[in-house]
């Protein structure tokens, strides 16, 4: 039987908490989001790293040397702590704060990029410089498309370019193909790179279950879902291969 009075009663009963909630928010201001989680950990490499890649230099040997040896797997002590691995929290949005407008340097020095592996926030700029006494071209590719390919003579003008998209940007010099680098661009601030002793730390992560991703230039990607809680520090350990 349809009874308007009963319906009204139920409606009030159910909607009262909602109304109170809205009123509370009005009075107390917007609910504070908790950005409290901290993630800390280490990245390891198990075993003996393969021998370094050795490349012959066919141009500018006077300055670059006759050959170049590249060991991308840099490990520290018997625990195999791995440096230069980039750790990031996936599937989270930026915290809404302004992106700090700093220029990320990409420097051609002694026939290598410095830093070789770098990170930036979407919206920041890179500044490319050439400190060598020879011509370099800094060539950056993003998803198969040229992001930039610029020549710089010795002492040439720095080149500034904004990073508009997130993801992996690979860097090389066509004139010296042993010059390689990677730049990872993120749409949020939750990323970090392992230091000399394989450690990283990311603060202020929104609480919740997030996939945590580790990227290494030659070892590839590792992923693990971690429940980040509001209080305390969550410890994680990743191991290649």
């Amino acid at each position: 039987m349809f009874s308007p009075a009963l319906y009204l009663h139920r409606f009030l009963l159910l909607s009262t908490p909602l109304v109170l909630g809205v009123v509370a928010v009005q009075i107390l201001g917007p609910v504070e989001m908790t950005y409290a989680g901290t993630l800390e950990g280490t990245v390891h490499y198990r075993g003996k790293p393969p021998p370094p890649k050795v490349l012959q230099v066919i141009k500018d040997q006077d300055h670059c040397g006759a050959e170049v040896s590249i060991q991308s797997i840099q490990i520290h002590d018997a625990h195999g702590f791995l440096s230069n691995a980039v750790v990031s929290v996936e599937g989270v949005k930026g915290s809404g704060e302004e992106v700090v407008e700093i220029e990320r340097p990409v420097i051609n020095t002694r026939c290598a990029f410095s830093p070789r592996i770098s990170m930036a926030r979407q919206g920041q700029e890179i500044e490319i410089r050439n400190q060598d006494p020879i011509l370099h071209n800094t060539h950056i590719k993003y998803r198969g498309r040229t992001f930039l390919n610029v020549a710089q003579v010795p002492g040439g003008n720095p080149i500034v370019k904004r990073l508009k998209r997130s993801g992996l940007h690979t860097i090389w010099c066509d004139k010296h193909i042993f010059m390689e680098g990677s730049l990872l661009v993120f749409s949020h601030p939750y990323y970090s790179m392992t230091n000399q002793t394989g450690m990283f730390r990311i603060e202020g992560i929104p609480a919740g279950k997030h996939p945590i991703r580790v990227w290494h230039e030659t070892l590839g990607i590792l992923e693990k879902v971690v429940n980040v809680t509001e209080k305390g520090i969550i410890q994680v350990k990743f191991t290649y291969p």
Partner: protein
Amino acid sequence: MKTSRTFYGWTMVLFFIAQPAFGSSEVSFLNSAREGQTIYERSCLICHGVSGKGDGPAAFYNAAFSASRARDFTVGYYKFRSTVSGSLPLDEDLFRTITNGIPGYMPSFSGLSLEQRWQVVAYIKSFYSGFQDETPESISLNGSPIPFTAASVQRGKALYEEMDCSSCHGRQARGDGSVALAGELKDSRGLSISPNDLTNRTGWKNGTTARDVVRTLRTGLDGTPMPSYESQLAGHEEDAWHLANYVLSLSHHE
């Protein structure tokens, strides 16, 4: 593939009909792209492929192991632009390429009417979504030329050394620089690519006037090792013209 595109096309048409607030330019772009598809299927598909990936039946014929294979229109890089390195081309750039063709690689389509060429421009842009949300950054290339004189050629020769064009193109500019001879140069697809022989302009892709060469030097050819020298040449535009005069002098008396 084709069905889904047709379906997409019709959905878009209905969308625009239902939204008279949109400018008529969108509608005409759309009609244009639909006409363009017919032209594309007749004239371009054989090399550029059904889905624009540069994998048409003839694409591998002359570029199985080395550059240059027909352009993949879904990736968004273009060689022949009047825009900064990394930028999309202007419509005019695409129009010019279609009109002139690419010597040795792609026929000229000057036989198509102007309208048909614009229609096919609209259609090939539809393969890459970046054309909808990026504004190409053009470089002003209207500067007045430096006359072709012995002094200018001389200055250009010095710049050719200074800017180390010879690493790739060679001392004698025959495309035989040490980096090129070592086989180290690759295009975006990882295919071996040779720097042009600058002493024989009949094989050039991006035009043979001084203005064309200035454009190549300032914009670079995206997707290839040929870099943009814009940061060295901005504010020294005359240097670009001296270099162009020098490069042209190498095949001047043929």
